[in-house]
């Protein structure tokens, strides 16, 4: 009789090449296939696991596609009103200074409705980490213009492309924040290739480690895609991102050890 | 006993702090007290007034339109508050800067040359304490020692070196207040 290989023959510790971190729940991700949110969630959770700080970490979910981040991240979390995550984080960190506190926010949440909270939390030098996902569009509400939408880029509220004379310029909020003395580490990364995933993970680890120094805000922008909002396949979206987003939002560290770095 | 007082004058004359010292003195004497200022932009250099109530009972309204006593330190306040003194009530005023003196016949009127006296003593800042002394002479509702305790309580410690001058001013007020009618 021919031997058949069953699932239990394959799932053995010696065959293990990849395992999802326990800090990601088993809930099915609500993100579109090809979206950068899932990858970014995973590397944040891996970082928290590797640092062994699960019991001392409090995360804050925004309003936007990642409003349900708490369904996927197996840590204590709060869900904030639109744009107010840095205000929540400010209070949590001040009341519990020994905790690791981070917000996870999209471009509409952080750079439009929440601009005041973002800038003032940074300017006060709150010892928190902000993970900022920039895909240049409002994903959850169906692809409207974001503050970071590129010039000429189409969205459901800029159907003929963003015209700066009417809609203003795309906002480089990350560069703006790096100017403030209250930020200590500011970096812009991406998660579209394995190499970039590794760099992003390093930046996030850095941001969390540096938070413990109490020298100010640490901030990691992840330039990401939105294939459904951009009306592209995941592959096309990543390519478009490389060709169009990266020239305007160049990757790399912007501020290290409280000093702006040249690019 | 319930004594309902309005103290009114210019901002900077120490109207509010005089009321506060009087209220604190009441607390030192186990009385119920309230202190209700006018507030807002009108305080910035304009008129200032405060309603102070001292009572042996729970105080009802801290805001009034009729008073047992009006302490009046400028003409606007004279015009506004003279009619609001209860019949048989007291009007105490400093004639300095007053162009129209009180005209009512159904109230007791006393005057105190407090600003003149403060200038003579070289103690302009405690003009209000001279007025307070005058009031306490006419209506000795709180004992002198409780007034000094109230003074200590209401002044921040950094001003405690001024207490002897304040005490002197209150005593001077007791002496110079004069009956008009």
């Amino acid at each position: 009789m021919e031997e058949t290989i069953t699932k239990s023959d394959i799932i053995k510790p010696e065959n293990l090449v990849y395992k999802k971190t326990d800090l990601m729940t088993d809930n099915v991700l609500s993100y579109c296939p090809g979206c950068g949110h899932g990858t970014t969630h995973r590397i944040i959770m891996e970082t928290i696991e590797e640092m062994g700080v699960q019991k001392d970490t409090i995360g804050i979910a925004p309003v936007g596609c990642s409003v349900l981040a708490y369904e996927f991240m197996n840590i204590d979390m709060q869900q904030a009103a639109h744009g107010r995550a840095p205000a929540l984080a400010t209070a949590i960190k001040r009341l519990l200074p020994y905790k690791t506190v981070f917000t996870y926010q999209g471009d509409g949440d952080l750079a439009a409705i929440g601009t005041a909270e973002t800038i003032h939390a940074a300017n006060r030098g709150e010892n928190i980490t902000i993970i900022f996902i920039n895909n240049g569009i409002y994903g959850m509400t169906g692809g409207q213009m974001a503050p970071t939408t590129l010039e000429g880029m189409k969205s459901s509220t800029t159907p003929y492309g963003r015209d700066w004379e009417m809609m203003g310029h795309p906002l480089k909020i990350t560069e703006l924040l790096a100017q403030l003395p209250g930020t200590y580490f500011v970096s812009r990364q991406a998660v579209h290739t394995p190499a970039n995933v590794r760099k992003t993970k390093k930046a996030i680890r850095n941001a969390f480690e540096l938070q413990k120094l109490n020298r100010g805000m640490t901030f990691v922008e992840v330039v990401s895609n939105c294939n459904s909002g951009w009306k592209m396949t995941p592959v096309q979206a990543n390519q478009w991102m490389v060709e169009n987003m990266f020239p305007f939002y160049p990757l790399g560290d912007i501020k290290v050890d409280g000093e702006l770095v040249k690019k | 006993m319930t004594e309902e007082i309005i103290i009114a004058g210019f901002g900077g004359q120490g109207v509010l702090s005089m009321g506060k010292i009087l209220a604190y003195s009441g607390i030192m004497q186990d009385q119920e007290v309230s202190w209700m200022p006018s507030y807002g932009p009108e305080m910035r250099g304009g008129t200032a007034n405060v309603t102070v109530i001292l009572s042996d009972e729970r105080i009802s309204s801290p805001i009034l339109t009729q008073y047992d006593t009006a302490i009046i330190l400028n003409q606007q306040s004279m015009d506004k508050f003279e009619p609001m003194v209860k019949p048989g009530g007291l009007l105490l005023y400093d004639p300095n800067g007053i162009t129209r003196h009180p005209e009512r016949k159904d109230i007791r009127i006393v005057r105190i040359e407090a600003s003149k006296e403060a200038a003579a003593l070289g103690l302009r800042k405690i003009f209000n304490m001279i007025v307070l002394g005058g009031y306490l002479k006419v209506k000795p509702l709180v004992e002198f020692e409780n007034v000094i305790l109230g003074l200590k309580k209401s002044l921040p410690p950094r001003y405690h070196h001024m207490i002897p001058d304040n005490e002197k001013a209150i005593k001077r007020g007791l002496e110079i207040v004069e009956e008009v009618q």
Partner: protein
Amino acid sequence: MKKELRLMKGNEAFAEGAIRAGVDGYFGYPITPQSEVMEYLTAEKPHERTGMVVLQAESEVASINMLYGGAGCGKKVMTSSSSPGISLMQEGISYMAGAELPCIVLNVVRGGPGLGTIQPAQSDYFQATKGGGHGDYRLITLAPSSVQEMYDFVKLGYDLAFKYRTPVMVLSDGAIGQMMEKVEIDEQIPRTQDEEIRSKYPWATMGKTPDRERNIITSLDLDPARHERHNLKLQAKYREIEKAEIRFETIQCEDADFLFVAYGTSSRICQKSIQLCREKGIKVGLFRPITLFPFPKNDLKQVARGCKGILSVEMSAGQMIEDIRLAIEGSVRSEHYGRMGGIIPSPIEVAEALEQKFIKS
């Protein structure tokens, strides 16, 4: 031992009450007529006295969301503002009600609408007692009428806020905030330690430990059936509050032919008006709701039994009168007398209004 007595403004008494009640964090934004709250707190250095955090936020919007964050961690948090600022906070208050977070919000009411005036008013009654923000929720609303109550209601407010996991509003006004009265100061209550928070408030986001599931503070639920269940739970809580937490005071109601119904500053005015009326032989009493939500419906109906008339006295166009009429169900004639725009009615005019509406007419 005789308690310490101080002469304090309502706003200062509230701030001292916060330190003494062991509050963990105050987050606020300046606005007249309540700025003394934060001024007092910063001058008192509560971080040295108890470890309390005091932070001037960039806006009222940020302040209330700071409360959300802190309350989510089981901390005693508070803010204070005045009418226009409270309007800005309504979104955050709605989120806190939805997420069932305890906190105290002090509204030192000034006249509106819009920027209005800085003078006292009671025109935010609807906003405070009927919800204020979006969605079906209520706030426990406490109405202090003296400086002592401004102090006392901090502790009472937290007892209720944590018991029911709900925001509590202290609805004061510019007159009570700015006036000074005698205040009895309590002993210091220590702040709650973090380990105690973990055991007392197992819902708090203090960091996930292996012995429990992760805690999530949210007001969102995209499943309508589950979200309806959540709403029903909130409503059941409000019904329980209506049963258990009614507070009110009656003054000279025993032989009264007429009742004033008034809260806060108006109730103080009415106490003088009672004297003036009784001097004329008109027997008037005062029914003072202390909780505006829950409104003391049954008690008012009881006290009003046999009365010839009720006069609701408010510094508004007539807001509480609607609750009064629901309470008495037409059993007694009820009228409203109010002033607006920052004008405080005088005891004489209130007494005259009663005569005008019920006796001379």
